[in-house]
């Protein structure tokens, strides 16, 4: 099977709060998948449940053939999953370099330096900040750093939760460019949550529309764009 990630009939939430209802999702190797939907629809929860940061009530999350719902949170990244979180995605009191090193926590010690060079060559805007304390960076700068950090673990699958939030149009375009690059060069699979769909339409292979915890549409970006009704009601795009 070519499926890197397969989510089946997932019901998840936090404690007694049920957020996701019977969610199904696939991501094959080298594919970029977009998850879109209104605020509070459960997009972040979906990514969190892959890391068991949300509680899984039923259903399964299968990564590369292994069931993940019994796995401990801190072991997930060791299976090749990088996660750029929507909030709290850098350690503010650590320097950028230390943040990057921390991102490579599960790699063998000897590989960290090498990996850091690779990542820095991919995410060049981060280079000038290496010695800065992450907490002193601007929002956009921090987002760049966070992206670089999430790449440090040599992921096979990268989860990006609103990677362009707070970025200027130029920086957003840079990120889109970077994502495209990653996809073409490294055959990295990606799950991307993105409000600003336009910049990603030519990058992603597949879209899922999540509304109130349910997937109400899945298909290619072209199909989604054709469905004017969905576009207008849920995404505010005509």
């Amino acid at each position: 099977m070519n499926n890197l990630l397969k989510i089946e009939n997932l019901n998840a939430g936090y404690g007694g709060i049920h957020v996701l209802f019977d969610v199904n999702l696939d991501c094959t190797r080298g594919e970029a998948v977009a998850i879109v939907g209104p605020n509070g629809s459960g997009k972040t929860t979906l990514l969190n449940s892959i890391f068991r940061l949300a509680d899984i009530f039923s259903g399964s999350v299968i990564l590369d053939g292994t069931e993940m719902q019994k796995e401990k949170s801190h072991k997930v990244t060791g299976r090749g999953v990088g996660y750029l979180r929507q909030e709290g995605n850098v350690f503010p009191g650590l320097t950028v370099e230390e943040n990057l090193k921390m991102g490579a926590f599960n790699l063998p010690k000897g590989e960290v330096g090498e990996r850091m060079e690779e990542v820095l060559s991919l995410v060049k805007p981060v280079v000038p900040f290496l010695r800065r304390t992450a907490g002193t960076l601007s929002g956009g700068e921090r987002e760049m750093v966070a992206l670089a950090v999430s790449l440090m673990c040599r992921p096979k699958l990268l989860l990006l939760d609103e990677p362009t939030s707070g970025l200027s149009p130029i920086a957003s375009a840079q990120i889109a460019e970077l994502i495209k690059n990653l996809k073409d060069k490294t055959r990295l699979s990606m799950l991307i949550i993105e409000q600003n769909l336009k910049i990603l339409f030519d990058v992603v292979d597949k879209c899922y529309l999540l509304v109130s915890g349910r997937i109400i549409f899945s298909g290619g970006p072209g199909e989604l764009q054709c469905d004017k009704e969905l576009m207008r009601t849920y995404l505010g795009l005509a």
Partner: protein
Amino acid sequence: MASFIDALTYSALLGLMGFGLTLIRRTTGVWNVAHGEVVTIGSYVALTATSFLAHSPYFYLPLAFLVCAGVSGIIFLAGVEPIRAKGASSILLLVVTIAISLIMIAVINIYADYLQNVFHLSSKNFLFARFDFTLLGQMGILWAAWAALAALTISYYLVLQHTRLGLALRALAEQPTLAVVMGANVKSLSLLSWCLAGGAAGLAGCLFPMRFQCHPGVGTSMIATMFAVSIFGGIEKMYGPLLAGLVLGFAQIYGIDLLSSWVGPGVIPFKDLIPMIVLLLTLQFLPEGLSGFVGRRRG
């Protein structure tokens, strides 16, 4: 002169006790009220070992470290972690440590009663000053306490700054969830911190009776002072307790001596108020504590 040395000794012991509180609060966000009882256990390890096995209490420092590290680890694993895993608030966790402290008070007192009733040891009041050695004209306890505190603080600092483990510990203190996402095992890192904190408390407890009178409530009665050390030192930096221990120890012993020579001996019993006053002033004027203040000044 005597009170100067006393103050120096007392400072180091306070620093050792505060070290654990600060460490636990920093890495796991819990104020451990049961820390005082862990200190007491260190004293009772010393009492038991010296009574039944002879040798000087110094000989049993490693034992006290291990026993108390174990006790503290068990407190974390059996008491705190299950409740924390359910997402309890920091207040609820504080209540948990209070509950554990009540249980430990009972166990310690039962043990002391038992030692007294069955083995006729003077377990309710003991002092080991007679076992002490002298080095360079000073009591051994002075050197031992400072050596323990300095070794702990410096080695912990080195680990924090120069190793992967240290990086993970710092990361954990800042953004626990992010640290997990990056593969840090929060539970074992927290356990490590609790054990180390307990070990430090054990050293303090084992050394305490070398100079000061010990009883089943010794740690319990000092917990407020320990909190003062921890908060006054600031929880951002691990040298906070050392600094705060020095200031408070001197204020409490040397300062009160000085004061009594001006005002009269009537003030001596009130030396225990000094940590509270310092705590009050800290909260008012220096909420980030001494080390936070020093850190801020340097940029």
